[in-house]
């Protein structure tokens, strides 16, 4: 049964990919909307990262945008200085992910000792420090542009790249979560003391979850940089961390399907309101959006999926 659900999901994914690709190429889907679709994919990758950190490992992070930014700036710096063909995107994306993961490892070692809200505050503080460093980055590396923003990044991100990254991230997170390492992370979320008592090295697994999640944010950042070809420190301030948190919680903590659906719904809703609303009340777009957010949260406090998954994402139960 699961195998069939898997095939259907694969066919649907391939179908979606082809439809967007073809309509994009023929101009049926205008470039603006193609960009929105790609952005939805990027938010999915970043959201999956935060879901690993908060949803599965239970470590409250309010600084996700910082790692997203580190990935973006690293990847953009590489492609901009190398000045070669589009294949440079792959090493650049990987470098962005590795850089974000490395910083996450270094900062995670000391601060992951903090619990719940205090960890949230520390990561929030770290996020703001990183934003200030981006603002002042041109003093060290003029290419990064500092508070004037980084321009002239090659436009390498395409629908295909985004799609491959989303599929890759979903598979990576799914296989991680259902591996013994992922199980250890979930047990840390449920009860740290009990997991320690059954021999799980909690520090190690908290760091593992944090580094993996932040690397995904870094990967998403690299895609973002090469989609919009312009980076500004404002794009990585703490409000952007809140956006990712909203997506993960709306989808349901600890649910891959939830994050994917919520990331797409969130991006398309914000842009969709722009189209649906008549011009005279367009100002209301950002008033309606938080109201919807409050209503959804009041009606479904555990998120849309509440920890459940589409069937094809779940491993077969052993009888």
């Amino acid at each position, binding site marked *: 049964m699961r195998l069939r659900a898997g095939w259907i999901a694969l066919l649907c994914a391939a179908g979606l990919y082809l439809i967007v690709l073809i309509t994009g190429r023929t101009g049926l889907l205008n470039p603006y909307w193609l960009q929105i679709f790609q952005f939805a994919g990027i938010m999915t990758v970043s959201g999956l990262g935060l879901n690993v950190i908060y949803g599965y490992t239970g470590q409250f992070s309010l600084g996700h945008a910082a790692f997203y930014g580190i990935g973006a700036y690293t990847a953009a710096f590489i492609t901009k200085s190398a000045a070669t063909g589009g294949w440079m995107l792959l090493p650049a994306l990987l470098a962005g992910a590795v850089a974000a993961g490395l910083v996450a490892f270094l900062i995670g070692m000391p601060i992951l000792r*903090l619990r719940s809200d205090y960890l949230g505050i520390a990561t929030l503080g770290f996020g703001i420090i990183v934003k200030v460093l981006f603002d*002042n980055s041109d003093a060290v590396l003029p290419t990064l542009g500092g508070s004037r923003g980084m321009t002239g990044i090659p436009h390498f991100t395409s629908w295909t790249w985004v799609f491959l990254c989303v599929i890759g991230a979903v598979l990576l997170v799914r296989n991680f979560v259902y591996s013994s390492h992922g199980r250890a992370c979930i047990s840390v979320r449920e009860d740290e003391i009990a997991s320690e008592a059954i021999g799980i090295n909690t520090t190690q697994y908290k760091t593992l979850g944090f580094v993996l999640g932040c690397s995904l944010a870094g990967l998403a950042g690299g895609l973002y940089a090469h989609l919009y070809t312009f980076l500004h420190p404002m794009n990585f301030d703490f409000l952007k961390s809140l956006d990712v948190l909203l997506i993960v919680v709306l989808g349901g903590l600890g649910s891959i399907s939830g994050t994917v659906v919520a990331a797409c719904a969130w991006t398309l809703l914000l842009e969709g309101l722009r189209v649906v609303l008549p011009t005279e009340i367009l*100002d209301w777009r950002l008033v309606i959006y938080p109201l919807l957010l409050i209503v959804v949260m009041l009606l479904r406090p555990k998120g849309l999926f509440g920890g459940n998954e589409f069937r094809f994402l779940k491993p077969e139960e052993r009888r």
Partner: protein
Amino acid sequence: MTILIQQIINGLQLGFVYALIALGYTMVYGIVRLINFAHGDVFMVGAYFGFYAITRLALPFPLALLVAMAGCAVLGVTIERVAYKPLRRAPRIAALITAIGVSLFLEYFCSLRFVFGPDYRSFPRPFAVRNFDLGGVTVSNIQIMVFAVAIALLVLLQLFVQKTKTGMAMRAVSFDKDTARLMGIDVDLIISITFAVGSALAAAGGVLYGIAYPQINPFMGIMPGLKAFVAAVLGGIGIIPGAMIGALIMGLVEVLSAAFVSSTMRDAFAFGILILVLLVKPAGILGSSTQEKV
């Protein structure tokens, strides 16, 4: 040396404004364990209430302050009743997300043309600015007024929480909600009172901020709100004197690092100190770390 003293005075001015916001954060967190992200926006609304009370209603400053505080107390209670109360038994993160929703709503609703409008407004000075020269250090009457109002409100709050019956009930609820209910305390009422008091203090902070740094806009609450919250954590969240100490430290660090190191890096210093303090004392300066029971 005079420059240092001058900057310390400027830092204290900012710190006292942060303290008024931080108290609301810390009281709400102490009672419902919620990071009330909308608190910074209540501060903004308070500044606007003060602005309209002075410009449209032509009220004298003390009355304008009271109007702003009363208006925001009502706003705070409304927010609590509509957005947070239904989620009291839900996972804590759900209330946090609605708090973010309320915050965004207040910012963008207030930016609408027929509400406050998106533009920067200059806040009127309710009295002429006068500077007093004390041996090279200048102190303006605005600074003196900020200190006086903030200290008076802080003392009043401390008396309210420590000496009155309602204050005792607030402390009881923050200590143990279920036991407090068994002792006959109306917990919902106490939570509403806490939101009202916290929001009124934030409004006072907003009016003082408007007078001290005379420019207001619907997004002015984000950064001061964030810093005040950090100040509350720095001092030990849930502890009222802690919030004050934390806020004064934040104000001083911010102004001193802007004056002597680099003005673009001042947020990095403020938040760097936060992380260092949390690493050494995870429960904040005045917080006592509780040992987890197995």
